[in-house]
């Protein structure tokens, strides 16, 4: 057992469901007890999704438990096949139901007999892998399934497209800024004259998967999702892939150069150097920001970076290499891939921390006292307590990381957004500190006197206690309203009864 206050990566079934529900017209059946289907809430609320989440829980309750699940699960698959006519139904247990050790593979085969949809059991071990690993695996599994199926039918599209083309692999629902990154990557590919063959899994149809091999190469922007698929496609289908995350000016250039190398190796004749230089120096504002006075003033300031592998590595490199900021500690919660992390960031930071224990990271931050943190929502809250500003750069996701406005982290517009994030994080901190230093010379009272004006009325202890329970942001108003009520009626003392009577009277006014 592990004492855990917070966790960074979710359970395995979340990863599977992210993949399944990213595809178009794929339905997932969760074999799970009541309440385990909160994935639907997350997708609906965090992404402000307009459509019903294509995930149905086949509820395991005490009765089902007693009789075995087979009938119910098979019924629910067959029913969903009729109701929604999906192309594919993915069955997944959760940590809980996986312990039942039922023969789900058999359920799937049974259900397949009565379904037009394809039916697949997600192949993950719910106690050995987390959300990220499970997502990576499920994507590979689905791609593999459909390529093998097409291979049997002999309709895999293996001929390359006439012009250079790419599959972007790893764009998924409930991914950190995935939508915006995807738009920016499509723009980047367009600028490079590369056609986007497929984007996976987001909004892709499983019918299109047989066309994967027609792209010239695969691009895997996130290390956490898509790498298994890309490796499979390289081994089985001879497709080269690029797994350099195009985040930051330097790494974006490196990614583009790697693409150039692959394309030219396949017989194209492209030269992106001029494009890179033009973007770097004149289109993106990030290189100029690095050189400008604003960034000069950040030189040597201390920062802590923490997040998933992709974002923590990229931010560490950007801060240290592009902005001259001193990264005291860089860390990730992707323990399963920690060696890679260490290898990537070691030369750019003083210390590496690989841990998924929120308390350990919080303690490290408290000791280091950096000028800014770049981390997850957890670190943002740690920062809030310590009065250290934090830019959020990585999942775990939070509604604030699903902005409506365009905010990619990748590509050249991404470099601009990151420059803003870095600048604002540090200056917000400076502003707060300046206010703290000079606060005493200022006349806070002048502004707040409208609120705190003394009253002529007495509050008895109980009423005062009750008033103090009222949230601060409305307390002033409740107090004034109550006193007005009391004054109008000639009460001299405000008791609990008066307080409640006032509430009733006031709310009736509207």
């Amino acid at each position, binding site marked *: 057992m592990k004492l855990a206050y917070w966790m960074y990566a979710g359970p395995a079934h979340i990863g599977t469901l992210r993949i399944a529900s990213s595809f178009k017209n794929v339905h997932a059946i969760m074999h799970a007890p*009541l309440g385990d289907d909160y994935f639907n809430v997350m997708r609906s609320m965090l992404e402000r999704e307009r459509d019903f989440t294509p995930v149905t829980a086949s509820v395991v309750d005490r009765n089902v438990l007693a009789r075995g699940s087979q009938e119910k699960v098979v019924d629910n698959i067959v029913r969903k096949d009729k*109701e929604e006519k999906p192309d594919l139904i993915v069955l997944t247990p*959760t940590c809980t139901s996986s312990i039942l050790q039922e023969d789900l593979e058999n359920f799937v085969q049974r259900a397949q007999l009565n379904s037009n949809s394809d039916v697949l059991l997600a192949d993950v071990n719910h106690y050995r892998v987390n959300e990220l690993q499970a997502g990576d695996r499920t994507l590979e599994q689905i791609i593999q399934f459909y390529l093998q199926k097409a291979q049997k039918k002999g309709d895999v599209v293996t001929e390359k497209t006439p012009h250079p083309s790419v599959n972007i692999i790893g764009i998924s629902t409930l991914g950190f800024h995935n939508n915006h990154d995807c738009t920016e990557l499509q723009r980047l590919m367009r600028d490079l004259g590369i056609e986007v063959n497929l984007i996976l899994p987001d909004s892709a149809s499983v019918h299109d998967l047989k066309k994967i091999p027609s792209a010239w190469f695969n691009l895997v922007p996130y290390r956490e999702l898509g790498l298994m698929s890309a490796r499979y496609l390289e081994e089985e289908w001879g497709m080269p892939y690029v797994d350099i995350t195009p985040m930051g000016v330097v790494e974006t250039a490196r990614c583009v150069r790697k693409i150039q190398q692959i394309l030219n190796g396949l017989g194209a004749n492209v030269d992106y150097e001029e494009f890179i230089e033009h973007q770097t120096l004149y289109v993106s504002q990030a290189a100029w920001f690095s050189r400008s006075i604003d960034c000069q003033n950040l030189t040597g300031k201390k920062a802590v970076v923490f997040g998933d592998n992709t974002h923590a590595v990229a931010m560490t490199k950007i801060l240290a290499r592009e902005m001259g900021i001193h990264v005291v500690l860089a860390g990730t919660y992707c323990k399963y891939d920690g060696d890679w992390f260490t290898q990537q960031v070691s030369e750019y930071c003083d210390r590496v921390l690989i841990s998924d224990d929120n308390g350990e990271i919080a303690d490290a931050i408290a000791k280091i006292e950096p000028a800014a943190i770049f981390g997850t929502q957890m670190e943002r*809250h740690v920062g809030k307590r310590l009065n250290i500003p934090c830019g959020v750069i990585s999942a775990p996701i939070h509604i604030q990381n699903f902005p409506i406005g365009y905010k990619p982290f990748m590509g050249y517009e991404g470099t601009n957004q990151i420059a803003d994030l870095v600048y604002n994080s540090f200056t917000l901190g400076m502003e707060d500190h300046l206010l703290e230093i000079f606060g005493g010379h200022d006349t806070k009272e002048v502004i707040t006197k409208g609120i705190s004006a003394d009253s002529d009325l007495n509050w008895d202890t109980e009423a005062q206690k009750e008033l103090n329970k009222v949230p601060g942001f409305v307390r002033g108003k409740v107090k004034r309203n109550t006193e007005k009520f009391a004054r109008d009626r000639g009460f001299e003392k405000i008791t609990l009864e008066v307080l409640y009577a006032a509430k009733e009277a006031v709310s009736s006014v509207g």
Partner: protein
Amino acid sequence: MTFTPEKTATPELNFECETGNYHTFCPISCVAWLYQKIEDSFFLVIGTKTCGYFLQNAMGVMIFAEPRYAMAELEEGDISAQLNDYNELKRLCDQIKRDRNPSVIVWIGTCTTEIIKMDLEGIAPQLEQEIGIPIVVARANGLDYAFTQGEDTVLAAMANRCPKEAEVKQIEDKQERNAIQKLLNFGKKQEETVHNEYHEHPPLVLFGSLPDPVVTNLTLELKKQGVKIDGWLPAKRYTELPIIDEGYYVAGVNPFLSRTATTLMRRRKCKLIGAPFPIGPDGTRAWIEKICSVLGVEPQGLEEREAKIWENLQDYVDLIKGKSVFFMGDNLLEISLARFLIRCGMTVPEIGIPYMDKRYQKAELEFLAQTCQEMGVSLPTIVEKPDNYNQLQRIKKIQPDLVITGMAHANPLEARGISTKWSVEFTFAQIHGFTNARDILELVTRPLRRNNNLKDLGWSKLVKEEATL
């Protein structure tokens, strides 16, 4: 809008049980409010990553860096029984004791502990001896319970820990009872002696976790009738659990506490006052009247009080009168809310509800039927364990003015032009008693007021083709 407590012939309610696939929150949710209510507690949820991820995401409490609850996350070794449960739990509880030193640790069992048959009830007594902190065990699992019933499992378990009169007396005689508690109770005792406006009646304990201001509010309402509340289950601190003894009267404030009620009756030999719940001015009046009648107290001025409250609600009532509301079913407050909204003039085609204890909710159900009759509207169909997919088909057909639903369906329904309100908000808002009736309507009318604001913009359908809703 007067309420006649005498029974008249009311029509029969129509119950169905779909036993469908429906969405609601996991019962371990109750941790989110119970840890805040019981200030000296620590809640330890013994379950998987799935449970932990639910708590941090669905409950929107990520803002607290280190709350007074945590997961005992079961790992592969725990599941395969390679590790010793007792030792593992001891290690974790030792750490909790060291870091936080709570007055009680509540173990929340989950589906997983059920399935692997972890003997929490067996382990707890030995461990609490060893670490010197009471351990309360509640099986708030999703195999047996839905959402708010999690609180029921905790309160039922705590009911067993309430002291009996004899025990307290014994301890007090020995001058050993918690000094802090004495201090805390000091004001209260003084008050009792000073205002002796209470009638003589047998002890009354209320059960159900309510925010402190609501506790005060209901306490005052009963005090106005000369009825004294001898305690609340739960109290603000575990060390202040009320004395509960044979013959005490008990009354619940929430419809999802049937197990707690049963425990109090069977194990503690209490007498349950079965009443509608104090939600809405109609329900609050009925609840007070029932308590008074059982305790032999003549209620004073309740009719006028109810009328006054209704008067204050008029502006909101005008907004919803004649409109229809569909309950998909989530938090077991559905019957009480529907009854109040029907009294406000709404119609209710369907009330979905995860679980229906017809005995514990008897008075409320009768009151619902009676309200429908008095308001001249047809009776809602009550669908236990509804099937959400089927419900969506019915909603598409009926096109209700408002759907009260869990969080998973709200946005998609809104995108299809159906107004919604999250059922979970009624779980967290202060809805009990006379005064708070307005807050219920504030919530209920919000989507309707929003629609009034946006009405001319033509933004009601925001999906391109109507999918198979």
